[in-house]
């Protein structure tokens, strides 16, 4: 019975993992990059490369908001909403924005943003049209070209499979503690199994947490029935209930002058003396129903929704706020969400999240390769490989080697496309998907060691080209970033150089590697004899 259960779990682990492993690899790859969402956006926008982080950032916020209100009152008096986005440690610039009137057929208003250097209060050079880190962030749960809701169902389905694969993996890994630190080199499939086990075990709490909380972030889409039962107008009613909103003056009609912003800020600082304000939003400015929402950073607390106070813009009275003490269910939901997004993370935890993400990529990648290698080893010398094996090998090459190359293409396109190109951001994304498609087409026809070696060599050059092209097309380079302590930009370029070296090592390893599929060890030979008998 025990043996049967073990075999069932092994079967479940193999097939549940294999069915969605390439999609999971994409989710983990893009999700891991999303932990550096702001840093990627910073690199993609050369206009903000030289903006220094403010030494007295929080102390300067009050004056920045007051100046912003004056600016928006002069420039966007007739706008339906204003937004002041204050500099944060990872986003060093200040934004004053007002919404343009909606065009017919438009769902959301477009914003006219003015970006400023907070140290000089001078307007920055025009921003180039790029999605930056947001592309990878959205990609990991919206899959870009798919309808968002369909994509999220697919992602949830894959996450559920991942969760089953992790749990069944723990069950079948009998020597989980015995082999915890073991990695046997140059042992063919054994090495791949060790890499798979090690990358799974070393970040097991992270893998479980990120997979489970990933599904929790979409729980209201997966399981809307309690809210639909409890509220007359379903999910909308539920969200209205849990999100602080103005119900006191929202029906007020007519125009009204705005209260001075200082009186609002005084109330904010009375409630939170050390508030780190991240954003101020004004809806319907200069109207009797206007609201001013002040959002502050939640810091290191496990809370995803930023604490906020909402004031009437006409009277200055506080009309709504987030709860100071969360109910148990809300606290659980908020903490699970914040654990997944990692927005609370300072640099140390952020890097640890990235380590977990990389371990996830290695775990999934090694799992895919291991399956193909085992089937390839079992295939008799002259037998033709099955369609399934060819498909898996092709998808392995396309995903594992294609995604890094596509990422390099995305960043290279960011630097090489003309800033005035129409729909520039979409073209960067097109560069990503075209490159990935090109690798997939190659993998469709050939996926031998030679193709892996060629792809590794191309990735070596591609990774190297990102910092080089950056140095040639902007005023900075890796050395100047180091000299001026621009750590985010320096790390970005340094990581590409590091990956270039790693791909070079892979190229060399593949060049010198023996064709193990043609060499059968004595133990394998014995196994084959046993199978025959």
């Amino acid at each position: 019975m025990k043996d049967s259960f073990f075999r069932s779990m092994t079967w479940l682990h193999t097939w549940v993992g294999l069915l969605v492993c390439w999609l999971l690899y994409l989710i983990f790859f893009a999700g891991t990059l999303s932990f550096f969402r702001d840093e990627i956006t910073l690199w993609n926008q050369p206009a903000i490369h030289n903006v220094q982080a403010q030494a007295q950032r929080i102390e300067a916020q009050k004056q920045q908001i007051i100046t912003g209100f004056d600016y928006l009152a002069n420039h966007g008096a007739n706008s339906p909403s204003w937004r002041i986005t204050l500099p944060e440690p990872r986003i060093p610039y200040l934004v004053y924005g007002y919404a343009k009137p909606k065009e017919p057929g438009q769902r959301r208003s477009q914003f006219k943003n003015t970006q400023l250097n907070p140290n000089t209060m001078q307007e920055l050079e025009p921003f180039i049209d790029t999605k930056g880190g947001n592309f990878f962030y959205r990609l990991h749960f919206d899959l870009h070209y798919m309808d968002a809701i369909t994509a999220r169902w697919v992602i949830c389905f894959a996450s559920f499979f991942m969760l089953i694969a992790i749990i069944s993996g723990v069950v079948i890994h009998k020597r989980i503690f015995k082999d915890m630190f073991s990695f046997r080199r140059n042992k063919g499939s054994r090495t791949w199994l060790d890499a798979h086990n090690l990358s799974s075990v070393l970040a097991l709490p992270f893998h479980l947490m990120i997979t489970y909380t990933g599904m929790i972030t979409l729980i209201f889409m997966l399981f809307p029935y309690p809210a639909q039962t409890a509220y007359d107008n379903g999910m909308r009613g539920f969200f209205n209930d849990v999100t602080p909103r103005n119900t006191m003056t929202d029906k007020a009609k007519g125009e009204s002058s705005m209260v001075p912003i200082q009186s609002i800020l005084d109330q904010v600082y009375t409630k939170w003396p050390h508030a780190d304000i991240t954003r101020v939003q004004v809806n319907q400015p200069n109207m009797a129903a206007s609201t001013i929402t002040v959002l502050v950073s939640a810091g290191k607390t496990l809370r995803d929704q930023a604490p906020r106070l909402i004031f009437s813009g006409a009277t200055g009275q506080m009309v709504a706020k987030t709860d100071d003490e969360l109910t148990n269910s809300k606290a659980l939901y908020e903490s699970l969400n914040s654990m997944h997004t990692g927005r609370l993370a300072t640099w140390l935890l952020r890097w640890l999240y990235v380590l977990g993400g990389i371990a996830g990529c290695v775990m999934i990648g090694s799992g895919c390769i291991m399956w193909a290698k085992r089937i390839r080893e079992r295939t008799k010398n002259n037998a033709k490989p099955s369609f399934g094996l060819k498909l898996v090998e092709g998808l392995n090459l396309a995903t594992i080697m294609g995604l890094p190359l596509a990422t390099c293409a995305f960043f290279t396109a960011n630097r090489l496309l003309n800033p005035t190109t129409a729909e520039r951001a979409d073209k960067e994304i097109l560069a990503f998907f075209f490159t990935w498609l090109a690798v997939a087409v190659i993998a469709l026809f050939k996926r031998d060691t030679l193709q892996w070696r060629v792809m590794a060599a191309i990735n070596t050059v591609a990774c190297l080209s990102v910092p080089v092209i950056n140095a040639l097309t902007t005023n900075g380079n890796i050395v100047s970033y180091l000299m001026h302590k621009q750590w985010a930009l320096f790390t970005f370029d340094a990581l590409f150089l590091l990956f270039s070296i790693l791909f070079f090592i892979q190229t060399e390893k593949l060049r010198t590697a023996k064709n193990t599929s043609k060499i059968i060890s004595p133990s394998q030979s014995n196994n084959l004899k046993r199978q025959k008998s």
Partner: protein
Amino acid sequence: MIDLLGFSLCLFGFNSFALAKFNHFKDVFKKRPTELQSKSLLFTAWISILLSLVLCVATQSGYGALLFCGFMSLSVLIIMVFYNFLVSYVKWFSVLNSVLVVLSGLFLALN
């Protein structure tokens, strides 16, 4: 410094776990561990890891728990690298790790 102490305790714990295993101990010291040595190392490992967890959670609550999970991953990775690729340096690494625990602990105690 709290983070450094938390991490070095975690690393110390996993290093003790690795040394408590017969094959790793033999790789490092070229002899088998006695039953008592093995049990003492296991005991030290659990105490050290629990101390690290308590320290992280007590000082930074939920955020500390996340940090602790990250520290465990990083520790296992470092230990794996040393015990599989740099076995000859494990003794030095163990000494450095112990010094790190003592120094960061002392720094926190004195401030």
